[in-house]
C-alpha cells in the first residue's frame, strides 16, 4: 500500500507532489493520459505567477512544476482515474488502463472542466467551427471572422491571442461589463481587431456539419440578431470536476468539494482536496499551488497520526 495518491496534475496536484515527496511519502501522482498539466497547458503567456518577472508560457510553467515534483521522487503516471473508493482506511483508486492502487491518503486535485453553452448542435459542431482551445485551433482561422464568448480573463486572453490569426474577433458577453482583470480588459478593449458585443448571449448555433454563424439574443431587450462566423471559441468558465467523488465526499451548495475551514480536509478522513475543485472564488495558478501545499501538509499530518 502507498502512503499517498494525488489525483490531478495542475498547480495544486504538482505542488502537493513536491511537498509530500519532500516529506518522504513517495507520492504517486495520477496525471491523466491526455490532459496532464491541467488548464495551463492550453494557456499562452502567464504573467502573474510570482517568481517569473518576464512571464513564461503555460506549458513551460507546468513542465517546471512536474520536474520539481519528480526531482524529489514523485511518481507521475499518465493514466486516468475512473473509479475511487475512499470510505475505508485503505483508499482504492482504479485507472482507465486497468490498474488498481491502494493508499492511506488521497489528495483530490482534479480541477475544473470547461463549461458548455448547453445549446443544441454544440457537440456535433465541436471541432467543426466550435473550439474550446484557442492555442490549439487559432491557427486554422487565419483571416477569418470569429467570436469568443465570455467575460473573464480566459475570454480576454483568447480574444487577444486569436487576433494573431483572425481578421476580426467579436467578443460576446452577456453583461455590460467584464469580470476580467483590468489589464486583460484593457488589452482586449484597445485591440483594433476586437469588437465587444455587450449584453448579448448566444441563443442558437447555426450550421450543418460546420458552424456558419450564431443567433444572438440581447439580454436587455430580448431582441434577436444574426452573426455570420467561421469560428466560435467558448470561454464561459469552468465547473469543478467532481464526478469521481460526488457520492462519497460532501459537496458545497455550488458543487465544489467541501473542505473544513482553511484546511484541505474533506468529509472523509484521509481524503484531502486542493485547487480549483474546492475554489469557487479565486482560481489562480498561485492559489491552486498554495492549496496543494496545504493538502500535502494535511495529508502528512494525517499519515503521521496513523502510526
Amino acid at each position: 500500500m502507498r502512503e499517498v495518491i494525488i489525483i490531478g496534475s495542475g498547480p495544486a496536484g504538482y505542488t502537493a507532489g513536491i511537498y509530500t515527496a519532500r516529506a518522504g511519502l513517495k507520492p504517486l501522482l495520477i496525471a491523466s493520459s491526455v490532459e496532464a498539466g491541467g488548464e495551463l497547458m492550453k494557456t499562452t503567456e502567464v504573467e502573474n505567477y510570482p517568481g517569473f518577472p518576464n512571464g513564461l508560457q503555460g506549458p513551460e510553467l507546468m513542465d517546471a512544476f512536474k520536474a520539481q515534483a519528480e526531482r524529489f521522487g514523485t511518481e507521475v503516471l499518465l493514466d486516468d482515474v475512473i473509479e475511487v473508493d475512499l470510505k475505508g482506511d485503505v483508499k482504492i483508486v482504479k485507472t482507465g488502463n486497468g490498474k488498481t492502487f491502494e493508499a492511506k491518503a488521497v489528495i483530490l486535485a482534479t480541477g475544473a472542466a470547461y463549461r458548455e453553452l448547453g445549446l443544441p448542435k454544440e457537440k456535433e459542431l465541436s471541432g467543426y467551427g466550435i473550439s474550446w482551445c484557442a492555442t490549439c485551433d487559432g491557427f486554422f482561422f487565419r483571416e477569418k471572422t470569429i467570436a469568443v464568448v465570455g467575460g473573464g480573463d480566459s475570454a480576454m486572453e483568447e480574444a487577444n491571442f486569436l487576433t494573431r490569426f483572425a481578421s476580426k474577433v467579436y467578443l460576446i458577453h452577456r453583461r455590460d461589463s467584464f469580470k476580467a482583470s483590468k489589464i486583460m480588459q484593457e488589452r482586449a478593449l484597445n485591440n483594433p481587431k476586437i469588437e465587444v458585443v455587450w449584453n448579448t448571449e448566444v441563443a442558437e448555433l447555426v450550421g450543418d456539419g460546420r458552424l456558419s454563424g450564431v443567433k444572438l439574443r440581447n439580454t436587455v431587450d430580448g431582441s434577436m440578431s444574426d452573426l455570420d462566423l467561421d469560428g466560435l471559441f467558448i470561454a464561459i468558465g469552468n465547473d469543478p470536476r467532481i464526478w469521481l467523488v460526488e457520492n462519497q465526499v460532501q459537496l458545497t451548495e455550488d458543487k465544489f468539494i467541501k473542505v473544513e475551514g482553511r484546511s484541505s480536509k474533506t468529509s472523509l478522513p484521509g481524503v484531502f482536496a486542493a485547487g480549483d475543485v474546492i475554489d469557487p472564488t479565486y482560481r489562480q495558478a498561485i492559489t491552486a499551488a498554495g492549496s496543494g501545499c496545504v493538502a500535502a501538509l494535511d495529508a502528512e499530518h494525517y499519515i503521521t497520526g496513523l502510526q
Partner: protein
Amino acid sequence: MSKHVTTASFQSDVLSSSKPVLVDFWAEWCGPCRMVSPILDEISAEHGDKLTIVKVNVDEEPALAQQYGITSIPALHVFKDGQVIKQIIGAKPKPSLLADLSEFIN
C-alpha cells in the same frame, strides 16, 4: 514513431493504401496533440497489422489540413479506399480511442 506524410506522399501513403489509414493531423504547438501522440504510437504497435497510423504536421502541410477541413486538432481521420470514413476530434484516453477504432482493429 508513426510515419510523417506530406502532400507529395499522401496519395501513395493514404489514399491508395489497401489497409485503413488513420491520419493524425497535429502541430508542435498543440499540447493535446503531444499528449495523444504516444497513445497512437502504442495503438500502432499493437494493431499496425490492421490499421496504419500516420501523421500530418499542419504547419508544414497547410494545404492538406485545408483540404480536409481541419479546424481543430488533434483531428484523427480514418481513410479507407481514399475516403474519410471516421473522424475523431480532440485528445482522448487510450480506452476511448480503442473503442472509437474498434471497427478497424478487431
